[in-house]
């Protein structure tokens, strides 16, 4: 009988297309919005993946990685003296004005690394030599910075991305490019400019406290978490492991911005649209087939069998809609992957969540029909 259930479903082309279309739209909306949301959330913690330190020591009120509250210079040595700390390096970070080759001003994320170790260095150098950062007035910039700052020199001329050897200005001071690196996009969208810690203090406007963060590593044999706890206890500063800081950052986004709310609203809307379209269409499919279902009932089809047939029909359109919806989302992901905009991160568990939501929609729709069929008197087929 189940193959006949599918034939009945496919036989009603208009409803079939409506059902698959509605569920596709719903799956697309839920998956795509979730992927953009996850992508955005991953941006909020990209800074950590660009620096790669096991322990992040920050001012005690800092809750997320994109926020800086300056520390005292002496804090580096306080952290270094904590037992269990293998080494700890200062880090400067600040958003500064840079002048592009066409004279326009762009904001950049300036990172000052400890000159001796260059700890926190970019993950991938594309051109040039990172070691040259130890020379005066030198910077390594990421591809985004090379592009943003390398505007067309004269009106009409094509833009030319900056290359090693080029010179531009940060805060009215000369900076010479010695390398191009690749980074993951920063949450705020500013391009990265790496330099040495001491050089960064030259670029940045002078302030009483200039140390932004301390990056530390645990001694071999100790976990980052236990050493972070010790640092916190002994210095009164906040110390996070990478997963802790990621979690804290994402919590901060949930608590302090409207971003999650708007995404969650859209995702819920996708679910409601699915329920409305699928539920309504499926119910009218059942209503139109009521005489047939009554005849089947008279002929001895049990309620369990008819319910199974309705569930099969609902899940069939559900799975097709889910497949097409997720496929379209993935296609969208590929299309934007090169541009890097908008953020996009399609994770297996969000696909599973969409599947689950679609199955709930289909179950609800089928249940409406099942209720109708269960109450149906087989004798109605004798009435004309």
């Amino acid at each position: 009988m189940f193959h006949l259930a599918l034939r009945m479903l496919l036989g009603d082309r208009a409803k079939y297309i409506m059902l698959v279309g509605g569920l596709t739209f719903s799956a697309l909306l839920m998956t795509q919005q979730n992927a953009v949301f996850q992508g955005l959330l991953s941006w909020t913690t990209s800074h950590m993946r660009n620096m790669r330190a096991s322990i992040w020591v920050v001012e005690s009120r800092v809750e997320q990685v994109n926020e800086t509250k300056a520390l005292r210079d002496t804090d580096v040595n306080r952290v270094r003296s904590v037992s269990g700390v293998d080494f700890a390096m200062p880090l400067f970070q600040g958003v500064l004005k840079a002048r592009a080759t066409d004279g326009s001003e762009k904001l950049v994320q300036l990172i000052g690394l400890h000159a001796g170790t260059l700890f926190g260095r970019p993950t991938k150098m594309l051109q040039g030599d990172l070691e040259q950062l130890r020379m005066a007035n030198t910077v390594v910039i990421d591809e985004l910075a090379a592009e943003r700052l390398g505007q067309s020199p004269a009106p009409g001329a094509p833009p030319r991305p900056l290359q090693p050897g080029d010179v531009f200005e940060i805060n009215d001071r000369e900076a010479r490019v010695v390398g191009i690196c690749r980074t993951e996009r920063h949450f705020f969208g500013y391009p990265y400019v790496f330099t040495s810690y001491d050089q960064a203090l030259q670029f940045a406007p002078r302030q009483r406290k200039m140390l932004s963060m301390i990056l530390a590593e645990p001694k071999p044999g100790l976990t980052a978490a236990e050493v972070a706890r010790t640092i916190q206890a002994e210095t009164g500063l906040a110390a996070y492991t990478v997963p802790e800081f990621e979690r804290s950052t994402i919590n901060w986004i949930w608590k302090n911005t409207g971003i999650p709310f708007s995404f969650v609203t859209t995702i819920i809307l996708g679910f409601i649209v699915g329920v409305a379209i699928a539920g309504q269409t499926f119910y009218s499919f059942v209503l139109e087939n009521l005489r047939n279902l009554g005849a089947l009932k008279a002929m001895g089809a049990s309620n369990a069998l008819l319910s199974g047939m309705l569930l099969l029909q609902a899940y069939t359109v559900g799975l097709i809609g889910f497949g097409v919806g997720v496929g379209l989302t993935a296609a969208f992901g590929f299309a934007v992957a090169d541009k890097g905009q908008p953020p996009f991160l399609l994770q297996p568990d969000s696909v599973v969540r969409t599947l689950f939501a679609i199955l709930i929609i289909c179950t609800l729709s089928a249940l409406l029909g099942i209720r109708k069929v269960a109450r149906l008197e087989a004798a109605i087929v004798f009435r004309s």
Partner: protein
Amino acid sequence: MSLPSSPSDPAAVRLTGVVKAFGSGDARTLALKGADFTAAQGELHLLVGPSGCGKTTLLSVAAGTLEWDEGQVDLFGTRLNDLSPSSITAFRRRHIGFIFQQFNLITTLDLVENVSVPLLLNGTRRRDAEDKAAALLARVGLAGRERKRPSQLSGGQQQRVAIARALVHEPRLLIADEPTSALDRETGHQIMDLLATAARSPGRSVIIVTHDPRTYSYADRLTEMEDGRVAGVHHGPALKDFISIHH
């Protein structure tokens, strides 16, 4: 479900003092007011009477598709009163074939699929069910049209498909409520011919509700209803007299 063979009771269908009311309060109508009805195996039994006298209701009770309020219903020696709703459903599935006034074929399925439904419901494998369905379609004169849709057929042809569907699982009871009233007179006669030849068999009881006196001559036995009760049963010479009066 296997049926006890009961030589002591050759009746296929026996309703005793059946009462059935619809609605409640002021809207309450007594459709059956203590109906006694018997149909024998091997006979084609017509059920006649004025509109609203309770024919459809009686047929529905006899087919186990409608619950009743009082009285006994026995089908081939099995008392339906003693069966659970799901056992009654199983009983219908196995032993009863249905023909409806509006044919009630599933429009999105082809003819073979429609006819195979009762077999599939009884757990027959798809291949076997479709083979058997095709054979039945041939028997009702529709060979070669197995893969057509009901909408591609005339009303009479559709009712033939319905007859094939009602017979495909070899039921012991065939129930038809006004199978010819949606058809023109000539086609109606052909359908009655088909029912009289293809449906009638020694172990089977065929009960047909009809309005049309011209079909009376097909009956082995005829029950007249009036106002929720059985008013008379005719067979043999008495049936001939009854027919001649009503012509």
